[in-house]
């Protein structure tokens, strides 16, 4: 493989690995835990690095993931004292752990393969230089590590799909059926931690959050099915990785930053154009509803005054603006629409219901 392809592969693996647990974070409304965890793994990584001297060592990854889980435990412990609320508990714990990490780096590790820039951005561009051979394949360590983590996430989610699904959508029932919600919660948090640690080398501490939240949030706007949401999240994440790589090599900037930006762009596009949940679709839907309601109002109005003494005055075009409080343009458009649907007929200024219109008005009134 050439180095460019290797970088893209790692980026895609990172994005896919993040999107899988991210989907559950978004659905379970604990998205900000990814923020807390991705910051809190830093001291674990630094200490592990001091002890073992190799950031990709499985022991270092496990140790760092443990410090992510520690952050979750501390946050929940703090919450349990009932002295602070949930957001405050998160916001109190992770800055401490992150600060400890930054201080350790500046004091003891500055310049030795671990500096503050790497913490924030990762070093995806250098990933091909660090290689390892397993099964006779000479590939960058990043591919092995992220491939393994991606595989772990896929297997864990496939194995516990039913439990995760139930615990996410009906925690009460899950608990009643004996699914141990706490165990599922901590299992998920462990997956998030391991993924964050693996991704740390490539995209840094904070941008993991973008890859964990943005693709699932976009997928959430595109489907109602959990299995489809997982697949769409992964696809969108990988798209963000490709897009980010292209943008980064085009204007010569950090791949990680560009990936996070692209994941945001993808979310914004989805936010605007999603077929049902998108802003434009919702706007169109609410306009359609308003129009249909206006036509129904018109029909009811006409049917109320049909065959009465005041029919000539009430059921005339100019009267609608005053009676129904419509602007002349809106009244005109509504009459036009009702005419097109064959519900009313225009006789000069007078509006008359067709039999179909009369039937519709009655149905509306019966509703």
């Amino acid at each position, binding site marked *: 493989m050439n180095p460019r392809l290797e970088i893209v592969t790692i980026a895609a693996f990172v994005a896919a690995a993040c999107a899988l647990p991210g989907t559950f974070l978004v659905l379970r409304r604990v998205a900000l835990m990814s923020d807390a965890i991705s910051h809190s793994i830093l001291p674990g990584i630094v200490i592990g690095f001091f002890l073992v001297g190799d950031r990709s060592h499985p022991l270092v990854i496990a140790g760092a993931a443990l410090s992510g889980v520690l952050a979750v435990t501390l946050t929940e412990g703090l919450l349990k004292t009932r002295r602070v609320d949930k*957001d405050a508990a998160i916001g109190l714990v992770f800055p401490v752990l992150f600060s400890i990490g930054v201080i350790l780096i500046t004091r003891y590790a500055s310049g030795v393969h671990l500096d503050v820039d790497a913490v924030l951005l990762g070093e995806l561009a250098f990933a091909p230089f660090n290689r390892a051979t397993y099964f006779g394949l000479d590939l960058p360590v990043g591919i092995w590590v992220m491939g393994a983590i991606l595989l772990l996430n896929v297997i864990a989610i496939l194995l516990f799909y039913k439990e995760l699904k139930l615990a996410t959508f009906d925690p009460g029932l899950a608990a009643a059926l004996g699914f141990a919600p706490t165990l599922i919660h901590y299992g998920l948090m462990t997956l998030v931690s391991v993924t964050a640690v693996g991704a740390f080398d490539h995209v840094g501490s904070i941008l993991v959050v973008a890859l964990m939240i943005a693709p699932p*949030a976009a997928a959430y706007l595109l489907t109602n099915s959990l299995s489809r949401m997982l697949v769409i999240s992964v696809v969108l994440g990988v798209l963000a990785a490709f897009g980010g790589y292209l943008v980064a090599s085009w204007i010569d900037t950090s791949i990680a*930053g*560009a990936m996070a930006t692209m994941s945001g762009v993808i979310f914004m596009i989805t936010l605007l154009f999603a077929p049902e949940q998108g802003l434009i679709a919702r706007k169109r839907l609410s306009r359609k509803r308003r129009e249909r309601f206006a036509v129904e109002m018109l029909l009811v109005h006409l049917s109320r005054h049909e065959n009465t003494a005041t029919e000539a005055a009430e059921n005339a075009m100019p009267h609608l603006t005053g009676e129904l409080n419509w602007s002349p343009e809106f009244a005109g458009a509504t009459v036009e629409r009702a005419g097109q649907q064959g519900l009313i007929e225009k006789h000069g200024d007078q509006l008359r219901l067709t039999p179909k219109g009369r039937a519709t008005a009655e149905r509306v009134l019966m509703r």
Partner: protein
Amino acid sequence: MDVFQTLSLIVTDYTLRNVALGAGILGIVSGALSTFAVLRKQSLLGDAMSHAALPGVVLAFIITGQKTPLVLMLGALIAGWLGVVLVSVITSQTRVKYDSALGLVLAVFFGFGMMLLTWLQGQNIASQSGLDQYLFGRAAAIVEHDVQTMALLGVAVLALVAVFWKEFKLLSFNPDYAATLGFPVRAFDIALTTLIVAAVVLGLQMVGVVLMSAMLVAPAAAARQWTDRLGVMIVLSSLFGAVAGAGGAIISSTTTRLPTGPTIVLCISAIVLISLLFAPNRGIVWAWLRQQRNRAELQKAMLLEKVYQVSYLEGSPLQTHPLEELRTFMRGSQLERALEALKQDGYMHLDEDGRWGLTPSGVAQAEAILRERPRALARRPSPDGLRQEVVG
């Protein structure tokens, strides 16, 4: 360097004085605003805003080519504000929830900022150097002019808080009521958020965008433990912020290779920990002690009642019992402790044979306890050993 030397340096050393002053101002302002953020359960809004400010800072530099604080602050303000608006649009218009929207804006904006910053660093523009100090803050770079700007902005923010005190108070505790009173809740909401962004901007140079979030949660979380009154809380919160800010900045400036932002964060977190543990009333330590004391009182009352019932059953309330017999009521050392405490109170006595019995005042006390619970008195075993069950 000892404490006295440090103190004298604050007065004489130009840099140190600026650093301490600047961090103190930051602490006061962020402390005051964190009060509202924490009370409104929006503790992580500051986190999101501080990260979202980064692209604003970098873009402001790219557009104007200037690095003056005011220009960068304006950029941060616009970006942070845009982030808030985006969060509010996403949460109000779609089914994506607050936490996802906040995290998304935080990370994506920050990623965009980092992308711009990396691009800028590759452009070989000499004047861009130093922009990355806004990531973790570099207090040492602060000059007197910066402090003046910070002071000005800080006074403006605090003045606004004072002017709209009543409105912000109502907004924090009962926004629905405020809305029914006809207050423009949304406008004040935006105003408060804007002030938080302003505080973030203040903290950029000092602690940096990455750790500013802590300054917008921790002071108020600490102050909340000491009081139930908003006025007191905001003053305490500012005080804690100032102490942690100035203290952390001084420690990091006088120690080699100790970054400012993280040091300040650790200082304020220490204050939080102390407050959580030891604040009067709400302190976890006191609550634990109270719980222990209550448990001991409860056990004493229970033992007294049981001994009274058994003695009554055996003929006389003043009947004495060997220790072993009482073991059925309470296990292990708890029993000895409760007996000892009751003896101290004069409710029980130990005779020469090593038997425990109620004193007359103990009998009175037990009857008083039982009278407080009429049903228990009614269930008192009758002398002939039969239980008088209460009917109905």
